[in-house]
């Protein structure tokens, strides 16, 4: 790493500088998570869960979209297989964050397990660009970006869960935060793709499975159909969509 300063600062000062730089780049995440985490806490309470539930889920699952899905699944029947498979499928994109971060997270020593545990979308959106500010320790910068993002999420969830009773406004309709989340992600992904066969396919297949299998079983059926159809038409679809070459040494 290049150091602009002629006399390298002490270890503590370097860590502090890394924390400060990490805070600066994560401010937009603080605002976004502030709203979403707070709503998530409120939403869980509105479903009748004790405050401890959303807080523990924020810490253990630590993947916003999956937490929202789990919240709504926990109000239904006991479905451990669906919970596991939907966790794998919904978060399958994290595989690609990991692949992109393989080299960058090399040499991070004892911080590495935490960095891997906390590689959420928002952290990847900051660190995946590869930019590291000058005058910071790369490893501690990665660590603080991950840590700050996690604390924003957990603390705003806790705030929503704990203060839901004393709110000066009616929370009726807060349920829409879940569809709003997925509609926004869906639109975002729609705008980034050149053709929409997969987006439309996901909607259509799931709708058919819902009609055919009913609300209890359609998720597993849809996930199976989507993956099988993608694999069956791999040759045709690969020609339509250039598969990214994620080369790494």
């Amino acid at each position, binding site marked *: 790493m290049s150091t602009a300063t002629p006399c390298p600062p002490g270890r503590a000062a370097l860590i502090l500088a890394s924390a400060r730089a990490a805070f600066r780049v994560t401010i937009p995440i603080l*605002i*976004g998570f502030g709203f*979403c985490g707070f709503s998530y806490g409120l939403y869980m309470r509105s479903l009748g869960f004790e405050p401890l539930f959303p807080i*523990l*889920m924020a810490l253990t*699952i*630590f993947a916003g979209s*999956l937490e929202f899905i*789990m919240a709504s699944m926990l109000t239904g*029947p*006991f479905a451990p297989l669906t919970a*596991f498979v*939907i*966790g*794998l499928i*919904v*978060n*399958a994109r*994290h*595989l690609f*964050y*990991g692949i992109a971060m*393989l080299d960058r997270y090399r040499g991070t020593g004892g911080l590495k397990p935490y960095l891997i545990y906390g*590689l959420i979308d928002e952290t990847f959106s900051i660190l995946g660009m590869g930019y590291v500010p000058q005058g910071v320790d790369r490893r501690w910068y990665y660590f603080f970006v991950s840590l700050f993002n996690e604390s924003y999420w957990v603390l705003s969830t806790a705030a929503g869960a704990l203060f839901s009773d004393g709110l000066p406004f*009616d929370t*009726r*309709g807060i*349920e829409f935060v*879940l*569809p*709003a*989340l*997925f*509609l*926004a992600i*869906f*639109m*975002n*992904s729609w*705008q980034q*793709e050149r053709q929409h066969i*997969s*987006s439309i*396919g*996901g*909607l259509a297949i*799931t709708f058919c499975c*819902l009609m055919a299998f009913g609300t209890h079983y359609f998720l597993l059926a*849809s*996930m199976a159909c*989507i*993956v099988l159809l*993608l*694999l069956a038409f*791999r040759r045709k*679809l690969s020609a339509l*969509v250039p598969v*990214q070459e*994620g080369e*790494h040494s």
Partner: protein
Amino acid sequence: MTTMQAAIMIGLAALATQITRWTPFLLFRKRTPQVIRYLGTLLPSAIWGMLVVYCFRNGPLVEGSSGVPEIIASAVTLGLQAWRRNMAVSIAGGTLCYMALVQFIFR
């Protein structure tokens, strides 16, 4: 569902998430299988479509709603995202719009 059953489901969801985060660091150090890359390109948008349908699997979200507030708020969310391209703005705008609709207009 008992608390124990809920804990098991939460634990499995957490385990699945951690598997997706650790696999590249444990298995794909050298080379990513081609089929994984292919699924990685096409699977996510299908899953977002699936989850949109999942949200509305029971029809209207709050008791007594006709479905009109859901349609309006969905259009607002999609429109905001298409226009501002800012996820937090779209989610907040759509949710606040829905809350206003079911609390004040379609009561």
